[in-house]
């Protein structure tokens, strides 16, 4: 497949191609083989921007999955104060990752691992969604926390394919960006112990949030949260309450449609559905404010939780 090439940076002549469903993957593979550097702008639902260096993927920004900043801060891996100090000292000249490690806010290995899993999660969101157009721009726009060296596109795509297969095989299929989950009253008991994340999810499962929404609040990967939601549905702790209006998302839609039983989610449609969180400058999202997470944690500490079932 020939990749439309833009003029060198500064020429102002970008190229675009309407790839159609499923064409993002071969495009990325071709870009990798050509060793292209720049940005691949993907429009669609959720859409995003893929940062490329010598054909490798170094960062992905998409509203479909939390970025590294959200993952580091909302999971409490890095304290906000430390992040702000590191940002002020190093973000402008592209040394954010080194600064975080230098200040002992996170280990270099853990940061690299989180960046790699974050890339897989973001590409999963892009591939599973709908792609309307891809535009390759050979410009250098550094990401705040790039993976260095970047990840091979084929390796990431193989992981995305594995994830789609896992979702297809779930006993209770959950669409990451459509299905809203509701906690079953009285079903929960802390038998697995703290740290398994179930209590936090139950506190968020108010019938208005999808797996994606919860991932942003908790600073976790969308796919990981989706798997946990499915397991919690299997255990009778959650039910799929309603579903967002369908967007053309070939991957996940196909996955869910084949195996999911018709439920209230589809019957309810999207009427009256609240809007999904919107990104805001500085890495936050309206639906994922630290204050919201703090209120969840406060609820948990003060014991506002479902009645134990006695088991």
């Amino acid at each position, binding site marked *: 497949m020939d990749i439309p090439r833009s003029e060198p940076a500064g020429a102002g002549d970008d190229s675009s191609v309407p790839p159609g469903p499923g064409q993002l993957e071969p495009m990325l593979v071709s870009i990798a083989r050509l060793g292209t550097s720049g940005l691949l702008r993907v429009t669609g639902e959720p859409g995003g921007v893929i940062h490329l260096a010598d054909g490798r993927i170094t960062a992905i920004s998409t509203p479909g999955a939390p970025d590294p900043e959200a993952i580091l801060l909302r*999971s409490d*891996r890095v304290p906000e104060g430390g992040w702000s100090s590191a940002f002020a000292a190093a973000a402008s000249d592209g040394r954010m990752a080194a600064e975080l490690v230098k200040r002992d806010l996170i*280990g*270099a*290995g*853990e940061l*690299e*691992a989180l960046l*790699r*899993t974050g890339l*897989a*999660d973001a590409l999963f969101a892009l591939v599973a969604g709908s792609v309307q157009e891809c535009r390759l721009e050979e410009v250098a726009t550094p990401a705040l926390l790039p993976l*260095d*060296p970047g990840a091979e596109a084929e390796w990431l795509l*193989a*992981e995305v394919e*594995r*994830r789609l297969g*896992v979702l297809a095989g779930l006993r209770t299929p959950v669409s990451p960006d459509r299905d809203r989950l509701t906690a079953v009253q009285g079903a929960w008991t802390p038998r*697995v*112990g*703290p*740290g*398994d*994340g*179930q209590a*936090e999810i139950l506190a968020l499962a108010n019938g208005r949030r999808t797996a994606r929404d919860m991932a942003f609040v*908790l600073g*976790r*990967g969308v*796919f*990981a949260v989706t*798997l*946990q939601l499915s397991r919690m549905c299997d255990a009778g702790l959650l039910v799929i309450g309603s579903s967002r209006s369908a967007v053309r998302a070939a991957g996940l839609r196909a996955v869910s449609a084949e195996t999911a039983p018709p439920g209230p989610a589809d019957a309810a449609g999207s009427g009256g559905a609240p809007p999904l969180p919107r990104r805001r400058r500085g890495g936050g999202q309206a639906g994922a404010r630290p204050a919201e997470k703090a209120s969840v944690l406060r609820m948990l500490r003060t014991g506002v939780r479902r009645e134990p079932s006695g088991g």
Partner: protein
Amino acid sequence: MSGLSESLHRILEIDGARTVTLVDVGTGMIVDSVGEEPAGLPAAAASLADEARMASAAAGPERSGGDLEEMLVVTPDRVHLLKVLSRTQDEGFMLFVDVDRARTNAALAAMRVAQFAPAVLR
């Protein structure tokens, strides 16, 4: 080579080690891997992550034994070592080390992995 790969390569130097893999417990994703890459490794990693999660359900800070730290699976030919490196909520990272049993002692391999493991995420 990335810093993560360098750390995994140090563990690969343990006698009999064939594959050293860092696995994301929450998704079963292979984050990085060095050494041999047998067919089916991604599926095995995902399966091991499930096992670690289930084993964690039987452990935990409120249990007498505490949190899950490692698992050892021994077959006539192989020793599979799973070492939990970090854990928050329902996710975290763990090491999977595939060791040739004929070339090492299982307890010794576990001890060596435990020595190297803390450096992986640093």
